[in-house]
């Protein structure tokens, strides 16, 4: 699969800065999870979703609270404008706290209530098969989100219908809003659980573009089974004081923290 590593790296640096700036200006938002999944969104939106195609692939951001990551990419793709970024989470803005496709039509699903996105993805994948549309459906879910029962209903149906046009990324940053996901409610062993539901499961470093690319290539060749990619990530990735700190699940950013964060991202810690 062709991709440009330098291009992706530069984009992620840019997106990370936008994420920090949006949360800083809004004095609210979810920077930690946005930074953990941004490399995955970067790859998918830049290489896998062609918005010019009528029957295009879809991306459902089931962990809908990480809108800063989504809007950072959308700003770059021209779906939102620079002057809008300062309106995130404020009245009359298109940049809602959680994704709203009525305001931004390039959003494929309204999410935010956790556990629901994968089911919508299953419906889209079934629909694409029925239409004989060979594009794909990508769903990004969070680890805390896997505690929702509906995720497991959706996993069951994905393999039952042999949805080989469906790929799930688990943004496995291991932290939810309070502390370690697996201390709150243990998900492990995730891999064998998902495999037992009939999916092919891969494990990758969710910040390594080469591994993301290879996993995607693998999922496109998979036949008769959907693919579940456990992407090991770091919550707050790229910002020293945010990394692996649950405080940054959702928090406002001070002036000083803002400067440090931007420097960290530019230095590429």
């Amino acid at each position: 699969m062709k991709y440009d590593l330098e291009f992706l790296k530069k984009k992620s640096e840019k997106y990370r800065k936008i994420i920090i700036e949006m949360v800083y200006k809004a004095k609210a938002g979810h920077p930690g999870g946005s930074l953990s999944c941004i490399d995955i969104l970067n790859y998918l939106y830049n290489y896998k979703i062609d918005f010019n195609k009528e029957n295009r692939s879809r991306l459902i951001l089931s962990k809908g609270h990480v809108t800063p990551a989504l809007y950072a990419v959308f700003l770059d793709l021209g779906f939102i404008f620079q002057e809008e970024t300062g309106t995130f989470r404020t009245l009359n803005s298109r940049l809602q706290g959680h994704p709203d496709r009525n305001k931004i039509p390039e959003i494929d699903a309204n999410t935010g209530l956790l556990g629901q996105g994968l089911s919508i993805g299953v419906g889209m994948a079934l629909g694409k098969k029925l239409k004989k549309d060979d594009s794909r459906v990508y769903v990004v879910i969070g680890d805390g989100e896997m505690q929702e029962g509906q995720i497991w209903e959706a996993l069951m149906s994905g393999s039952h219908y042999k949805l080989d046009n469906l790929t799930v990324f688990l943004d496995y940053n291991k932290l939810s809003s309070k502390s370690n996901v697996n201390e709150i409610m243990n998900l492990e062993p995730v891999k064998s659980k998902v495999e037992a539901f009939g999916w092919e499961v891969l494990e990758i470093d969710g910040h390594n573009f080469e591994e993301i690319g290879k996993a995607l290539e693998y999922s496109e060749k998979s036949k008769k089974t959907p693919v579940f990619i456990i992407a090991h990530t770091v919550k707050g990735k790229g910002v020293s004081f945010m990394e692996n700190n649950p405080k940054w699940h959702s928090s406002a950013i001070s002036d000083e923290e803002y400067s440090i964060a931007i420097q960290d991202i530019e230095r590429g810690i």
Partner: protein
Amino acid sequence: MKKYEYISPRDYIGDILIKEAEKNNKIVVIDSDLASSVTTHKFQKKFPERFFEMGIAEQNSLGVTAGLATEGFVPFYVNFAIFGTGTVWTQLRQSCYANLNIKIIGTHSGMDNGSDGASHHALEDIALTRVLPNLKVFNPLDLEDLKGAIKRAVEIKGPIYIRVARDVVPVIHEKEIDFNEGNSEMLFNEGNDYLLIFEGTAAKQAIEGFELLKEKGYKNKLLNIRSIKPVDKKVVLKEAEGMKGILTIENHTINGGLGGLISEIVGESVVRIPLRRIGVQDKFTESGKTEVVKEKYGLSGKSIVEIIETF
């Protein structure tokens, strides 16, 4: 008393969907393991590739319905009313928020699932659905009303909930109905005593009550609210004018359903008229033959007469 033919509209859902699907290849049906109870097994037989069995996983089923709508299909999720609204309420709410073109048909409304008992009695589905923006709520009466409602649901782009009786209802209509959202239907207009307002799944009891009152010399009106949302406010207020009172009749809790809806309309208007509500009185019901459960919990022709006589 006038003799009616009685039918269960539930029995025709599969057939109606087949007819619509023959005209529109975007129509698909989603099931949660109750196809034979809601008659969509007929659709499955006719269009196996357009029928998606999701198993007993209602929340996933509704999400799948949303996904199919996003891909341009006209998906009908057909299930018992309690599952199609209550079990999936936040999933439904998200679909309404996104204004997706999903259609839900809820059968076994109110106490229609008699012997299954309180757990299965959908006494809240009108309340749960009519609070959701973008969602239209239809409550057809008999076969022709249901045909009209489904046909209109296919034409409208957006989320729709159709509430369908499992119990028998009298056959009122013999010809195709021009079913439109926001339209009501004055079934009988005999004078200026009481305005009886009912929803389709309580049609049998409403008509019985109306007829019993007629035998006693009352000159009432009987209004069918076939579209709960949007609702025909104008007709409700116009017909209420000059009457002695309004009685709402529903196979639902009196809270937040038809009675609540009509109370809101009247309460916000300049019309000053007493109003009483027939339906389940803020209680959980119990198992029994549908008809006797309805009678015990306040929905019967007899209870309508009692309320009017002590109005």
